[in-house]
């Protein structure tokens, strides 16, 4: 399921300053190679968690790829984010197997607990809630993934408990 896209009316950057020189090795690696646009964007996103306006501008300036092409590709693929994300991304699976086993309840419970909507980030930028199409763990449906960890056979209450525990663990 495609992630809710950036609202193009809001500034893409959240005001944090980014060290754009970190992009230099990525540009050096991919510059001039054919088919380099997606790896460039993937590299930038890995660095900052999202692709800011400034990062777009620098990539375009130094590789000669038109900004419009970059933006076109970045908005086509679900992977690319144009807004900053929380520290922990909660990916709730909405594949077929999870859907018929009430994945909607998982998303709704988390929405309620974190007071965010699907695709949004909590105010403290600790969690981002997302829906994904299929994590391929259908036998454990319904599932969600936080970081590298997958949690299976969930109920709404259990999902909320897991999230609360992550927050607790982080605070201590």
């Amino acid at each position, binding site marked *: *399921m*495609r992630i809710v896209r950036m609202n193009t009316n809001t500034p893409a950057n959240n005001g944090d300053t980014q060290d754009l020189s970190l992009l230099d090795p990525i540009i050096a690696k991919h510059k001039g190679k*054919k*088919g*380099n*646009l*997606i*790896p460039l*964007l*993937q590299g930038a996103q890995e660095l900052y968690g999202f692709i800011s306006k400034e990062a777009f501008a620098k990539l375009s300036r130094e590789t000669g790829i038109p900004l419009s092409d970059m933006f*076109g*590709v970045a908005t*086509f*693929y*679900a*992977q*690319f984010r144009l807004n900053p994300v929380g520290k922990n991304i909660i990916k709730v699976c*909405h*594949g*077929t*197997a999870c*859907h*018929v*086993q009430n994945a909607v*309840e998982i998303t709704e*419970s988390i929405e309620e607990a974190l007071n965010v909507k699907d695709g949004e980030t909590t105010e403290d930028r600790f969690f981002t809630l997302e829906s*994904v*199409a*299929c*994590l*391929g*763990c*259908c*036998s*454990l*449906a319904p*599932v969600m993934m936080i970081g*590298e960890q*997958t*949690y*299976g056979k969930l109920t*709404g209450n259990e999902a909320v408990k897991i999230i609360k525990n992550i927050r607790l663990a982080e605070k201590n």
Partner: protein
Amino acid sequence: MPTTVTVGLGSCGIAAGANKTYDKIKALKETDKLDFLLKKTSCVGMCYREPLVEITDETGTYLYGEVDADRAVEVIEKHIHQQEPIRDYIVYTDLFDAPENNFIRAQVKIVLRNCGYMDPESIEEYETRDGYRAIKKIAAEKTSREMVIDTILKSGLRGRGGGGFPTGMKWKFANANKSADKYVICNADEGDPGAFMDRSVLEGDPHSVLEGMIIAAFAIEATGGVIYCRAEYPLAIKRLNIAIKQAHEKGYLGKNIFGIPGFDLNIYIKEGAGAFVCGEETALIASIEGERGMPRKRPPFPAVSGLWKKPTNINNVETYANIPWIIIHGADAYAQYGTEKSKGTKVFALAGKVRHSGLVEVPMGMTIRDVIFKLGGGIKNDKKFKAVQMGGPSGGCIPDFLSDTIVDYDSVNATGAIMGSGGMVVMDETTCMVDVAKFFLDFTCKESCGKCTFCRMGTKRMLEILDRITNGHGKEGDLEKLEELAYQIKDNSLCGLGQTAPNPVLTTIRYFRDEYEAHISHKKCPAKVCRPLLTYKVDEEKCTGCMVCLKNCPVKAITGERKQKHFINQEICTKCGVCFSKCKFESILLS
């Protein structure tokens, strides 16, 4: 032979806690100075029994199921220390009747021949299991390219990604087009929700896919290879990278490989960026080239003008994994399985409301009923089987009364569904078919690339109608409008996504028309799924007056005193379902 303990560490095993099991056993081995070989493997397909631990000693092989860290301690204590296998935990063995013996024995493992039986990160183990023997055989016997293609043609292998186009034919076309540069691509962009065969093969046996690609590259004289893999499969990508590195070290990739003069091949991985349409071959090529993954018009087919406008052969993961087996055992050995027009085996990902969810590989021609009831163990919680969804968003729902349909490309197509990549999501009486159709359409609507008007806007219009129906605002004539739109979209879209997007709606209207009509005319959802059509009531027999529902109701529609029966005011109730999910005594009734 030393005793070996093998832990299954596929994605689903890890999600079920297999890493903890592995760590526990490793710690026990060290503290107790135990003499056994601890190994890792991937998914054997028995996902519903994960985490799985296999112990092989001189008496035989025992597969233990649901081994969490605590049970691991018990198993090691009894089986290793005291040499007494724990019968109750054993799910599969050759030595006596174990609960899952039939699950393994009813299968024919060709694609999954190594999955769960070897360490996927070891090229040596792959080689001891006939790995790279097929390409070595081709090199040693100086088999011609044409003969390789001929073998694949004769085997009857058809594209396992869902299209079902004969693989040998594809290779023949790519071979016929001469060019200094040619490419082989492996489509590992397994986007169908509910399908996970390719992930398991890549995680469990990455070398077989590489070997299949190498053989394809030999047959069509390709100079480069690309594996286009979903970024959502980090473990598959990691293991593929290891496999490619090992193949380079052994000289199986690079220049003049396998001693065949002039046979140079490099393979690299391209991570997908999350677009379902990129499973379509021309969109996939556009994506590798760094563009928006939009399909192109065919012809020219990729065999003529593919990646970078060079002749290109694209096959799916499962197709490639079949190739080495066919070369070693011959086309006839493969063609002995299956039906007249669909040869060999097919891997299915069983999921949904089925008892044994996991991976199964069966010969083509088995009935759907046998797959679900014999291998899948029937329906969870003894509910009634209603339908099985095959082929993901491009497929359809096959109802229970057609479950004697055999699995082969043509029989499944005749029902209006498609074989697809092999996802089988089982549905029971608590699944609403209108909701399922809406779910898939919502998916294709979001994933439509937007190039063709009918797909872009038609799916949106269909979704709006379905939304209305499930919200209780269905009108007479909605079904006819849905059908009309469906055929328009099918006829006027360029690629497979649009041509098949209406299938889930068409098949559900065809087989479950009464359910649609209940939604439209009677404003009722028989499966009790579509919330706006339900009424929530308190069961006065069961209500204990605990006040949990009352406190959680967001609109304060529930009244009642502590230890008194509660009451839901239907005029205020917004049917959000919170009371239903919060009640611990099942005293909220749906009707």
